[in-house]
């Protein structure tokens, strides 16, 4: 029940209630982004962000740099076997 799914924010629909549209593998849905906004990162800056969606909320932003580094490490391990 702790599952979540990655999606990308495409549009802010309600600033006051912090609602946004997220695209999850081609399907769009409205979610709440209260967990991922602050002064440095107001709603309008969230467009384009990849987030983890759980029960109608963006729970956290996906750190694209860290994701790339993890994949790079796995790539290096895989290469050592080819």
């Amino acid at each position, binding site marked *: *029940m*702790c*599952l*979540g*799914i*990655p999606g*990308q924010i495409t549009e802010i629909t309600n600033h006051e*209630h912090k609602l946004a549209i997220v695209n*999850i*593998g081609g399907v769009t849905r409205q979610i*709440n982004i*209260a*967990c*991922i*906004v*602050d002064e440095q990162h107001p709603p309008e800056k969230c467009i384009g962000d*990849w987030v*983890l969606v*759980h*029960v*109608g*909320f963006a*729970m*956290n932003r*996906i*750190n*694209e740099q*860290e*994701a790339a580094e*993890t*994949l790079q490490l*796995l*790539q290096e*391990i*895989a290469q*050592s*076997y080819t």
Partner: protein
Amino acid sequence: MKYVEEFRNPKKAQALQKEIQKLSQQIDKHIKIMEVCGGHTHAIFKYGIEELLPDNIELIHGPGCPVCVMPKGRIDDAIALCQNPQIIFTTFGDAMRVPGAKSSLLQAKAQGADIRMVYSPLDSLKIAKENPNKEIVFFGLGFETTAPSTAFTILQAAAENITNFSMFSNHVLVIPALQALLENPDLQLDGFVGPGHVSMVIGTEPYEFISQEYHKPIVISGFEPLDIFQSIWMLLKQIVENRCQVENQYNRLVEPAGNKNALTAINQVFTVREKFAWRGLGEIPNSGFKIREKYAQFDAEVKFTIPNLTVADHKACQCGEILKGVLKPWQCKVFGTACTPETPIGTCMVSSEGACAAYYKYGRLSTMAKRDKSGVSPEPLSV
């Protein structure tokens, strides 16, 4: 799909499998690793991950399925609430089939109770606005992953002054459960695969006691097959190098201090209960969230009379042993006979994240039994 498919790449999985094989050869004992989270249990079965591990690496399926650990009494309390004709009861679908003493929410719904499944707790607020003459009670459950969403829902209800909404909080906490497990002398564990999505909320710091006081390694892990393989590889590396640390495989989502907004919302709305009963594990101190007095008007336990039932677990059910990792599902006498996903006796058979349901569904009995060092027959015994 981005951030999903890349972490399912078979070539990289094979390479990790070989790395794991190499490390396992440097360890001359049987290693037991517990995956704490039910989401991991599900993924491990779905992708057959345990079968791809060396014989001396065993996975123990932990208590991390909030539906599986919900005691019968709380389900009966929920059903009692649903009998009030004023109440529309809203819940995540996961809780519908969990058996109480006599029935489940699904059965109560079939008998006429107004129970509605929602995708998000926020949906309950919409239902509350559409039904001003009814009382909407949301069944708040889940670990720290889900608690921010229910906390924000209560904050929003307060901001919008929605007076016909309340929540029956059954949130449970991972850290106290891990502490209780680690205190159990029956449990022989060599390390943990830590819950990724709980940790995205609470961070990695709360796990430090596991390495410092109990000297066990833990790796916080994502949920895709490569995440889980990489986490097991990182754990074995710690074991080979004689380290016990909190490591983070899931750093694309988990930061050491967790998510500040989520933690603030949780803190505003909830306070820790002195104790909470877990199915199979008994009462665990400080292991649940209740709603703070400040938000008492949104607390169904304050607003309504709740019978507060305590019901003993079914005699035949060994969910407690399963959740502690002491027994394997097929060692329960009613597994697959009296207890199936259609007619579950225990909660481990209800949710697809429960160990019993996973074994039942993915039928990995023969291979698993071959690996199992206890030598117990995997054939389910009749009652």
